């Protein structure tokens, strides 16, 4: 069994889905001959033909709208947006149609589509290539939002997303596309779309994060360990709906929680998690819930992008703040 990267996990899952279900169709800009600008669809058109892996004209509204149409008529479109910034024109069809089709028709029509795209910063890309818009999608009713942070979760969650009978947004943290290699068996086993993954057990503080920030969060946990502080690390993975039980259970044990997100702070997914802690989780808290987030600014062009994103230092700073309280 070969060790593969996160993006190879994506490719593997796409190939298996195309293989196992003839209704699955991959579409997007440059996904065919070129195999995607990140190579996520590399080799797929060659293997499955250009009626299963389809290069589209440059038109995101069209990709979204046609995916909705295809999904209602018996196909399972897996559309790619080339970068996070270019999903904005797709929001109309996601919000107004994909997430509403089943409800609108009392179950007569449904919309089993996936929209996948690379998200987040840190690869020195141009403007609009480095945003983290997950909160926008997570606020949309009728749509699941998923973000893997490891090769095996990339594989298992994407399979689940494609097999799901309802629309799923699948965001790929491109900064860690090739960060780690992991043995991933291509056994077709999917992972559940409604649970968090506890990546590291701990007793003093709960660090909650997702996507590429898992990297800095684990690094912060390592450094904390050296100081004798035991941090639990949770990868939320599915951002809508969120498995708050796992998070609250952890905070029940640690009494402290820091949430780390790359996206801007205001009305982000971290806010939702903290809000739940302020509600049902409140009696477990021994300290304020801190959020370490991107700033409420535009993601800077690449020379300053890492200054924008939560660093290990900023995570440690927040952990110190919540530990000082006792």
């Amino acid at each position: 069994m070969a060790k593969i990267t996160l993006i190879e996990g994506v490719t593997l899952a796409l190939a298996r889905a195309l293989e196992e279900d003839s209704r699955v169709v991959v579409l997007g800009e440059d996904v065919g001959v070129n195999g995607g600008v990140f190579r996520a669809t590399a080799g797929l058109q060659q293997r499955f033909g250009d009626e299963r892996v389809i290069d589209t004209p440059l038109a995101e509204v069209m990709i979204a709208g046609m995916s909705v149409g295809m999904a209602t008529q018996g196909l399972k479109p897996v559309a790619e947006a080339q970068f996070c910034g270019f999903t904005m024109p797709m929001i109309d069809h996601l919000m107004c149609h994909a997430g509403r089709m089943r409800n609108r028709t009392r179950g007569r029509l449904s919309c089993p589509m996936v929209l996948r795209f690379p998200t987040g910063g840190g690869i020195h890309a141009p403007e609009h290539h480095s945003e983290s818009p997950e909160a926008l999608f997570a606020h949309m009713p009728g749509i699941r939002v998923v973000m893997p942070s490891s090769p095996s979760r990339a594989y298992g969650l994407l399979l689940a997303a494609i097999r799901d009978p309802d629309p799923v947004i699948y965001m790929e943290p491109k900064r860690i596309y090739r960060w780690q290699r992991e043995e991933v068996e291509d056994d077709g086993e999917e992972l559940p779309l409604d649970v968090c993954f506890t990546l590291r057990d701990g007793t003093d503080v709960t660090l909650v994060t997702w996507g590429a920030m898992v990297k800095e969060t684990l690094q912060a946990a390592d450094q904390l360990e050296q100081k004798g502080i035991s941090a639990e690390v949770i990868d939320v993975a599915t951002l809508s709906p969120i498995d708050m039980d796992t998070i609250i259970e952890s905070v029940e044990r640690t009494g402290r929680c820091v949430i780390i997100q790359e996206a801007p702070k205001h009305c982000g997914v971290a806010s939702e998690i903290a809000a739940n802690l302020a509600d049902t989780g409140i009696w477990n808290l021994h300290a304020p819930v801190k959020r370490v987030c991107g700033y409420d600014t535009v993601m800077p062009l690449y020379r300053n992008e890492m200054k924008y994103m939560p660093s290990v230092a900023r995570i440690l700073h927040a952990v110190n703040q919540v530990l000082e309280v006792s």
Partner: protein
Amino acid sequence: MARTVAAFKVDHFQFLGQDGKLLDEQHVPAVARDFDRLTDLYRLMTLTRSFDKKAVALQRTGKLGTYASSLGHEAAHVSIGAAMREEDCLAPMYREYGAQFYRGVKMSEVLLYWGGDERGNDFSSPRHDFAWCVPIATQCLHAAGAAMAYKLKNEARVAVSIVGDGGSSKGDFLEAINAASAWKLPLVLVIVNNQWAISVPRSKQNTASTLAQKGIAGGLPSIQVDGNDLIACLWAMEKAVSAARAGKGAFVIEMLTYRLSDHTTADDARRYRPQEEVDEAWEKEPLKRLRAYLMDQGAWDEQREQELLAECSQFVQQAADEYIDIVQNDAQPVTAIFDYMYEELPHDLVEQRAYAEKFPEDGGHH
């Protein structure tokens, strides 16, 4: 040095004059002689108009929400339904009842929808048609997606979408034209140009001489027809649908008609358009014209007309009663807000659903 690399034209088709006479006896499509079919369609046009009147009346008496009338569009709408096969797919906007009735959507379903009940969209038939679509022109891309699905699955099915003169300005419609062109989709894009987009006249959407020519952007065959002439509408639709079915790609048809009513029951058109314009449009309306033709040809008479009107009013009354019965005696419970969101309800909605059930009185007091 200049050379012409592409040339195009838009033709306008009309067969039936305003007076119910054929404009050119020699050159008419076969359907102009198929009186059985034409009377059937005439009956449906009349029924649609009766329905419309009833729906407006229900709204005026507080029994229905905002309603978008189809008054004046009957030839255009019915022709669309009539040209399609059951297995084809319609992506309507919101007022094309004539097309939907032909296809099997029930009147009580239309009323349920405008009556604020999602069950209206659960068409008894055809099950695969798109629901009414409020975000203007988005349905064009859904139809393009449906056409793509049929093409990929090798099914000889055609998708038809309808958009208004207003909606033809929107990127969704224009991207659908491009998509149809890129993949040679079995798609028919119908522009029902009724001269108004709420208060904005056709002339303000753009200064092009036709809307049909938008199809030229994708190199699609693009024609204009008199949208009050059932024969022209049907001829054009059948031509387009069969070309699409035969794998020849997409078609754009602009049907020129007129919105004889307010935009919806929430609108008051007197605020922005002169009564003379409306009066003039009444002269061209589609029922009168077809009736005159059929009578002229001996295929219709005053007695059948009276019988039909009586039948229609009975039929729409039945639909209204059915609707009232459902909303009064079989209202959707609060849990219906949750139960169709996903195939399987996620844990957060399971909780919210249980919570909602604690407030049975909610909504009642408003």
